[in-house]
């Protein structure tokens, strides 16, 4: 069956628009939670699978380029009324290229997502830093974080990679069951 043009999952899922502006993905980003659940766009993960921070593999060429990883929930507290958009779950800066978050500087610690209402998108955005950031003012609150503004303040430019997954409360059964 001839396939028509495939739409970009980030655009279809609304990540481009709600969290970031359109960008060109040029650095590889691989995020794997424990129990070998790799984050694939629009995959559904349960809160029990994402209790601890995942293993993050950043691409790039050399150790001297530094990257920033931001994890936000744009659908907090619920997708119908996202008053706390975006809720910051994790912020790591100064990640050397080809390494992971364990080699970077954790500015805001990983908070395990526990959505209550609705199905939330959890978005990871990777930025390339111009240089190693020495002076960092951590955001005072996790809620109402703005990725675009943060990128502007620290001169991060356009994202270089993004991934997202869906998450609902542990006992939730919302959403279509996608049977492949």
């Amino acid at each position: 069956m001839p396939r028509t043009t495939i739409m970009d999952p980030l655009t279809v899922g609304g990540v481009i628009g709600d969290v970031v502006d359109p960008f060109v993905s040029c650095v590889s980003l691989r995020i794997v939670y424990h129990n070998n659940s790799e984050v694939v766009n629009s995959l559904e993960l349960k809160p029990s699978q994402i209790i601890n921070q995942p293993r993050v593999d950043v691409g790039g060429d050399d150790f001297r380029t530094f990257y920033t990883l931001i994890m936000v929930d744009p659908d907090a507290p619920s997708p119908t009324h996202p008053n706390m958009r975006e809720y910051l779950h994790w912020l790591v800066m100064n990640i050397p290229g080809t390494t992971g978050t364990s080699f970077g500087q954790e500015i805001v610690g990983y908070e395990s997502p526990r959505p209550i209402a609705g199905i939330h998108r959890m978005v990871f955005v990777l930025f390339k830093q111009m240089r190693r950031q020495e002076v960092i003012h951590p955001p005072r609150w996790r809620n109402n974080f703005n990725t675009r503004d943060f990128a502007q303040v620290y001169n991060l430019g356009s994202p270089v990679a993004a991934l997202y997954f869906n998450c609902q409360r542990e006992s939730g059964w919302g959403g279509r069951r996608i049977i492949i």
Partner: protein
Amino acid sequence: MEEVWKDINLASLNDHSTRPSSSSSSSSSAAAFIFQDFLARPFTINTTTNSDPPPSPSPSPSPLSPAPPQSLTALSLGCHHRPINRNHHHHPHHNPFGHHPHPAAPSPPSTTKLPYSSSPLFDTLPSSSSLPCFATTNRFPETSSDPAPTLDRRNKRMIKNRESAARSRARKQAYTSELQLKVDHLLEENARLKRQQQKLCEAAVLNHQQKKKSALYRTFTAPF
């Protein structure tokens, strides 16, 4: 009646001119807000002024037609036709929406499946107090005789349900397109690796043959 349409036109025009088209979510929520305003007013007016003279609604679609496309682009078309259907209910002796200029123009991404002519929901709706068919029953027993608040709540519920359905469809579509991309990627990688393996295999065979040629063989000549 005409002042209402003019007000709505002005409101939607003003909002459209002042609001830059930033993200789709903000525009859709803004349009939803306009839409709610838009919906609220005709209901109060239609139910109170039942005796409208027939000719007055007929010029009203013409001022209506330039304004709605602005609020329509962000909303599904099915939503928008409801007030027209309601007018039809209250005033069965004219049909403005038969000549409505934008029946199904662009297929909106977040479209509802409500076809233009058949609307079973509205056929079952009398003007006042019936409970919505798709909502849970007896959640809002009709205490007041004023239908505007329940209609408002119903509309809000419908809008929320539509948005939720649109999100669900977007999730599904995002997942399938992600999988398609991955499949393409993996097929390419597979083909590339197979070619590479083939080359390596051939190179190994060649190497083996060369080694055989240059291996030491016993000959009959000896130094002594």
